[in-house]
């Protein structure tokens, strides 16, 4: 299905947020925001993705 990932169109087979994360960032801790809703870490495995979802995956970077 087609989603918008970090602002860009993206084709994925992931059905849940956790699967998208495993596909994208297997080694890094990331937070997910689906359609402006922060998905709690504990709900990533049960939050289903749908066609056209806007998904942001975020992580920490250096900052002051």
């Amino acid at each position: 299905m087609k989603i918008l990932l970090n602002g860009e169109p993206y084709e994925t087979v992931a059905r849940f947020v956790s699967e998208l994360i495993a596909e994208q960032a297997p080694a890094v801790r990331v937070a997910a925001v689906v359609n402006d809703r922060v998905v709690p870490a504990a709900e990533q495995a049960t939050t289903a993705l749908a066609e056209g979802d806007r998904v942001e995956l975020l992580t920490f970077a250096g900052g002051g």
Partner: protein
Amino acid sequence: MNQEDDALVLGDHAYTSRLLLGTGKFASADVMARAVAASGVQIVTVALRRFDRDRPDDALLTPLLAMEGVTLMPNTSGARNAEEAIQAARIARELCGSRLVKVEIHPNPRHLMPDPIETYEAARVLAADGWLVMPYIPPDPVLAKRLEEVGCASVMPLGAAIGSGQGLASAELLKIIVREACIPVIVDAGLRAPSQAAAALEMGCDAVLVNTAVADAGDPPAMAAAFAQAVAAGRSARRAGLMPVGQEAQASSPLTTFLQGGERV
């Protein structure tokens, strides 16, 4: 004096180090990690960014998480208003579980001055939600008290513009903030030299946060250690009590002769 009974208290946490370190602008994650280790800081700030497939692991978190006794304080930089800052804080919590958040909202990219109105609003909402809010603010004594009233864990007034290295340009205002505040005052931004950090602690600020001054130094780990020493020295000096400034000679007429006569009880 024992450092143990002179902790920096933020909410229900006590820290012995009064230096906070930002993790931006370092040449590499390795240099950053060595600077953190060399300074003995217990709180480091981190920023949020979109995960980048092409740089899947920028190796920032791994060394930080491995370090004993280092707490992450996510900031909300990039947020242009209160709503975005609140969202950033909620995202950050999913990443590190931290209740500490540095609310940082600077809408003007040229000078990066904090927006007091949006900062206040974000701080109010987050503090009510149970966060230990650490707002980055202009050195405004009234704003500092208003933020204290809404339950912030500290205030972080700027010493000078971010990255400017101008030191404690706001010293006189900082003194008023320190005098009035019931929560820790942490000077954030503007410092260049460890002597400025020492001066901030001597004037009664509770801690300082530095980033560029360390990241841009010739030897960042060594500079981080120097800042740690300066902060400790400044704090010790504050507690020891500075000598008085020389008093000018008084040449006016005496004011207490009326008290020389018989004592009236």
